[in-house]
Each structure stands twice: as C-alpha cells, then as structure tokens.
C-alpha cells in the first residue's frame, strides 16, 4: 500500500489506443523513464548480438585447428564483440539506469534537459546501428568495406590507411565517435540534474549511493570521453586528409594513440563498474534489512576511485617500453585503486553481517558478484605488477581478468538491478522460480568459462588468435571454456522468457514490493509521467523508512 496519495495510473487514461499511437509515443518521448527503458532494452539487444559473436568465437576455439570461421571473420568478430559490449551494451545500460533512477531517487520531475536526453539516446542508437551496418554493408556494396577488424582499441598506426585500407575501420571510428557525443550529453544532463534538481531535504549527504556513483562516473565521462573523440578525429584526419599524427614514416608516434585511447579506456572500466557498485549498495541493505554500513566511506571510496582511475591508464602499456619510472608510477597507482575498491567490499559484507538476509534473485546476483569481483580485483592487482604483466600481457589471462570484471562484476550487478527495479518500471514482478534457474545456470556457466580461461593464459595462449596447434596443452582448457557457453546461453534464454512471461502474467508488484527505503518506491509502479504528485520531504538517507516508521526516524542516528 502506498504511503503517499496515489495518482491516477496513466494506463487507465490511455487504454483505448492503437499500438501505432503507442509506438509514436515512445519515439517522440522526452520522458526520462521511457528513455531509460529504451536505453536498457537496446543495450540488452546489443548484448545478445555481441554474445552471439562471442559464442561463434568460442566454437572456433573449442579444439585445435578447427575451421568453423575463416581468420578474417574471427578478427571481425572479436572487434565487433568488444566494441559492442563496451560502447553499446555497458554504457547504455549503465546510463539507462541512471536516466531512469536519478530523477526518481532525488525527487525530481525529470532530468535537467529532457530533449538533450532524447537526442543522446537516438544518436547512441544510430551509432550502434551504423556499427552493425558494416556487416551487411560488406562485400555487396562496393567500397563500403566489411565489419572492422582492428580490435576494440583500434591501435594506430595499424588502424591507419596504410595497414587497414577500405572503409571498415571508419565504421568503427564514426559509430563510436557519434555514440560518444550522446554519452557526453547524457553525462552533462545527469550532473546538472543531480546538482540542481534535488527535492526538498535531499542534501548531498543524503543522496542514495547509486546516485553518487552515477554522478561520479558522469563527471569522469566529461574528462575522459572527449579525448577519445579527439583521437578519433586525428585518426580520421590521418586516414582521409593525409595528416601524420600516427604516421611513423613522417616522424609521428606509434604509441600516442595508445596513450589517448587508454586515457579514455581505463577510466571507462570504472565508468561501467562504479554504477554496478551503486546497484549493489542499493540492493544489499534492502535484502539484509540493515542500513548500509559506512555510507560516508562508500561515497568517499566512490569519488576516490573516480579520481585515481584518471591516472592508471598506462598499465595497459607496460609492454610498449615506457621505462622504469612510468612503469612504477602506473603500477603503483593501479595498486592504489584497489584500496578504495577493497573498502567497498568490506562495506557490503559488513552490511550483510548480522542482517536478516532474504536470498531473493537480486540478492543472489549480488552475492555472486561479491565473490567474483574479488577474484577480478585480485587478478587486476597481479597484472599491475609490471614484470608479471610483461609475461601475461595480451594473453588469455588478461581476457579472463577483464571478463571477470565486466561479466562477473558488471553484468551480474546489472541482472541484480533488472530483477530489483523491473517491478518499479513495469508494475509486475519478474518470476522468482525462472529467476533462480537463470541465476544458477549463469553463475555456473560463467565460472566454468572464465575461471578456466585463466589457465590457458598462464600456459601462454595469446589472445586474438583464431586457432592454435594441438601440442601446447591448451586444448582441454579451451574445450571446458567453450562448454560453459551453452549454460550461459540457456540462462540468458530463460531470462528472456522470464521477462516476456512476467510482463503478461507476473504478479502485480504494488508500489514497494521489496519494502525498500529510497524515494523511487514512494510512487506508483510504473510511476506516472510526472513521477510524484507531491515530492516527499526528505529528512534522512532512508526517506521511506521515516514515512513508514514516523515513531523512529533515521535522522537522529545518522
């Protein structure tokens, strides 16, 4: 039952409309909730595409000397897989949740610039479609090239015109550039919204942790994404106007692109991961029935990670020969960033300690995240040691490490978040039984694939090879790695079925199905276009606790 006056659900007003009118509404909308949903849904669609690409690669690598895919197709697949996952899955899902949740969590009507928001979404979608158009634009149309095959970080000068003729690389360059414009716009939007449009009483020290994380990554985005765009402009000038930024023949540098790219690329990992931490920080307390442990340290750790991550980029470049001083600096800064990250892990564990834990599906995903992210972090610290990295750079150990971060860390928190906020966005619960099947199959499949993947890396298997000889001792590990893939695929299929079934027949959610404490649960599910009829006055970090327990408000204890 709502603790606030219930507005008239918009569905009742708009019952008698055709699907075309509904579609029109979604296309012209500037509502942050609809745009947020569209971001997340298109991110999931791209996730399926990029997942299918990964599946093809794993089939090719399942056994030595297979010829399921020709080598050039394999190169295209890993390029498209990586580019799609980072720019068209990770970013839109993270910012989609930011879009949906930030105004609801801070008690605002919408984002600060709703039309800019819509622009950001549509230009992101255009970028994603442009990237994938490179597939079908392929051999059929003369001169339009095929999918890019330069890797997701497109190292120049190898991505220059001399080494990558044709237009395939330009699809990579332009689609990522275009999507970047939208991301910067959205980041500006979220910063302006969070800083200027908070509801009454919502001071910065009462912001939900998720809002703190998305504020931090939006600010980071303003610093790190334009340098990538600048480097892409330079690459375009090199390729088409004969500039020499990355042209070693004319005295240009072969390393500069790597610096510019990783100045974006490494903080980008934290741009994706910090909101994942935000999801966990929202979900763990609610399912432990306790206040988050150490709010201030969590916020400080978030901002510290954001700041330190700006000076860790060259740990991707230990093997290019930067010299001892730079290697030491970037190694140490990378180790340093493990400290605030470790603090967060202790925060979550301490929140769970002594709590009355409910192992619903969102909490299950969070628990798996805690273990898997710890592993990911530890291999990260291992790789920050430059001599160790010299040995394992560009091996499957690195591939396993960052998939542990981005799947074991990020994707697990994204699933937790979808199970947690799906009732708010749709008004219906996601099925718990199918959700458990999804979770267990996915957690087993993920670990079979990616825990195993560390080992061929340690045995010296380089990444980005399309096949390998039989006498290296890699075959069994690769077979097991591939065998985890169908488990994950079935899990994702179950998730899709769960979403479709729950949308039609899921149990009605009510306003506040989890007995949660942040403001988004104070309004109806789904929320009306205007979010709140009256914006509640906030006097603590758990405004809904205060409304439910007026005799024992949180404020005095904070």
């Amino acid at each position: 039952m709502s603790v606030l006056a219930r507005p008239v659900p918009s569905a009742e007003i708009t019952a008698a409309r055709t699907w075309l009118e509904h579609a029109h509404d979604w296309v012209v909308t500037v509502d942050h909730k609809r745009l947020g949903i569209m971001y997340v849904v298109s991110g999931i669609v791209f996730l399926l595409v990029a997942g299918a690409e990964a599946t093809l690669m794993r089939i090719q690598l399942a056994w030595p000397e297979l010829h399921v895919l020709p080598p050039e197709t394999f190169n295209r697949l890993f390029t498209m897989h990586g580019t799609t996952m980072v720019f068209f899955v990770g970013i839109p899902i993270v910012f989609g949740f930011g879009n949906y949740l930030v105004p609801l969590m801070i008690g605002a009507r919408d984002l600060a610039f709703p039309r800019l928001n819509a622009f950001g979404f549509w230009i992101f979608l255009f970028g994603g479609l442009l990237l994938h158009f490179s597939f079908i634009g392929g051999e059929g149309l003369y001169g339009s090239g095929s999918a890019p095959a330069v890797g997701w970080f497109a190292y120049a000068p190898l991505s220059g015109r001399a080494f990558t003729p044709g237009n395939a690389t330009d699809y990579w360059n332009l689609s990522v550039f275009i999507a970047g414009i939208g991301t910067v716009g959205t980041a500006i939007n979220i910063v302006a919204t969070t800083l200027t449009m908070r509801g009454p009483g919502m001071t910065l020290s009462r912001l939900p942790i998720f809002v703190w994380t998305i504020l931090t990554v939006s600010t980071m985005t303003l610093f790190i994404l334009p340098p990538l765009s600048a480097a892409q402009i330079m690459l375009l000038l090199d390729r088409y106007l004969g500039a020499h930024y990355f042209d070693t023949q004319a005295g240009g540098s072969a390393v500069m692109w790597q610096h510019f790219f990783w100045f974006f690329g490494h903080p980008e990992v934290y741009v994706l991961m910090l909101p994942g931490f935000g999801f966990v920080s929202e979900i763990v307390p609610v399912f432990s029935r306790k206040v988050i442990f150490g709010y201030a340290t969590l916020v400080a750790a978030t901002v510290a990670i954001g700041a330190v991550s700006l000076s860790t980029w060259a740990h991707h470049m230990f093997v290019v020969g930067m010299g001892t001083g730079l290697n030491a600096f970037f190694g140490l800064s990378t180790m340093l960033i493990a400290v605030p990250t470790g603090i967060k892990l202790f925060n979550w564990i301490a929140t769970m300690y002594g709590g009355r834990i409910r192992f619903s599906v969102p909490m299950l995903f969070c628990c798996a995240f805690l273990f898997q992210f710890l592993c990911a972090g530890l291999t990260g610290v291992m790789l920050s040691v430059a001599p160790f990295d010299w040995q394992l750079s560009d091996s499957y150990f690195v591939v396993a490490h960052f998939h542990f971060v981005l799947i074991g860390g990020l994707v697990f928190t994204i699933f937790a978040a979808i199970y947690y906020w799906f009732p708010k966005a749709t008004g219906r619960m996601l099925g718990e039984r199918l959700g458990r099947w999804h979770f267990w199959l996915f957690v087993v499949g993920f670990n079979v694939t990616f825990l195993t993947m560390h080992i061929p890396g340690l045995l010296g298997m380089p990444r980005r090879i399309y096949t390998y000889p039989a006498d290296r001792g890699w075959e069994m590990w690769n077979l097991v790695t591939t065998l985890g893939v169908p488990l994950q695929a079935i899990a994702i299929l179950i998730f899709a079925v769960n979403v479709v079934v729950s949308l039609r027949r899921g149990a009605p959610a009510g306003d506040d199905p989890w007995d949660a404490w942040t403001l988004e649960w104070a309004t109806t599910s789904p929320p009306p276009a205007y979010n709140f009829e009256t914006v509640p006055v906030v006097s603590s970090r758990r405004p809904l606790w205060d409304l439910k327990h007026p005799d024992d408000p949180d404020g005095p204890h904070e």
Partner: protein
Amino acid sequence: MTGPGHAGHAWRGRVGMIGLIIAEASLFGVFVVAHLFYMGKSLHGPLPREVLSLPVLGTICLLSSSVTVGLGARALLHGNVRRSGLWLLVTVLLGSIFLAETAHEWYRLIYRESLTIGTNLFGTTFYPLVGLHASHVIAGLVMLGLCCVFAATGALRTAHAERVEMVSWYWHFVDGVWVVVLMVVYVVGR
C-alpha cells in the same frame, strides 16, 4: 520548465554549460598535448618560426569581444534589449575580424608557404588545433548572430537573460582557449 520551481532550477543551465566547457576543454587538451609533443619533431620545413607571425589584430579583437559580450548579457539582465543587441552585434563583428585574420593566415600558409595538413608534423598538429578553435568561434558567432537577429525583431526579452548569459560563458571559454592556443602555437611553438 517555467513556473516557480525551487532555487536550483536557475542553476541547471549554468551547471550544464560548465559541464559542456569541461568536456570541450578536455577535447582541446588532447590537441594541445599532441601539438606540444610533436613540437620540433617535423622532419622537414616549413617550420613554425619561418612561417608563423603573431596574429596581433585578431587576438586583440577576440579578447576584447569577451568584454562586449559581457556588456551585452548584462544589458539584457537590466532590461535594455536594444543596448544588449548592439553590444552583441559588436561582439559578432569583433569575432568576424578574428576569423577573417585566421582565414587570411591559412590562405597565406597554404598557397604561399605550401604548408598543408600533410606537409609535416607541424602542419598536422597546427591546422586541427587552430581549426578546432576556429570552428568553435563559428559556432559562437552563429549563436550570437541569432541573438542579434532576435534583438532586432523584438523576440529577445528580459526573460532570456539567462540564456544569453550562457552564450556569453561559452564565448568566454572560446576566448580562454585562444589564449592557450596562442601561447602554445605562436609563442612557445615558434
């Protein structure tokens, strides 16, 4: 959104503009770094000290246009649309003089000194950096020009004072970038 709102709403345009300026600054930063990194590494001429001269007139015009745009924004805040439009017009003229000098410089470099983006590393880093700045000047002139037109047609009102102020912030930023470009390209780089 119109209506009373609370005090924060007045700030959202400002915070948005500051965000844009941060993003633009880091965009310029990379081009500046590239220029500094390749300074003196051109394999052959023409070199900056042979072909560049200080753009004195353009610099004076552009920097003083920061003052005029400020006066224009303030005049609108005090409700004087006519005066505001005039100051904005002066700003547009000063900015145009700057652009004309840049155009003349590029013409001279390309046709007389045979320096293009593909000639050497100096050309490679010079044209994109100065050109990126010039394209920002053009964007600013379009916005300021629109404000002038609106002032002339009476569409510009005191209610728009905040928006014109945001245009003036952008213009100040473009001026600030020029100071950096001037130092890096024409003073240190020469």
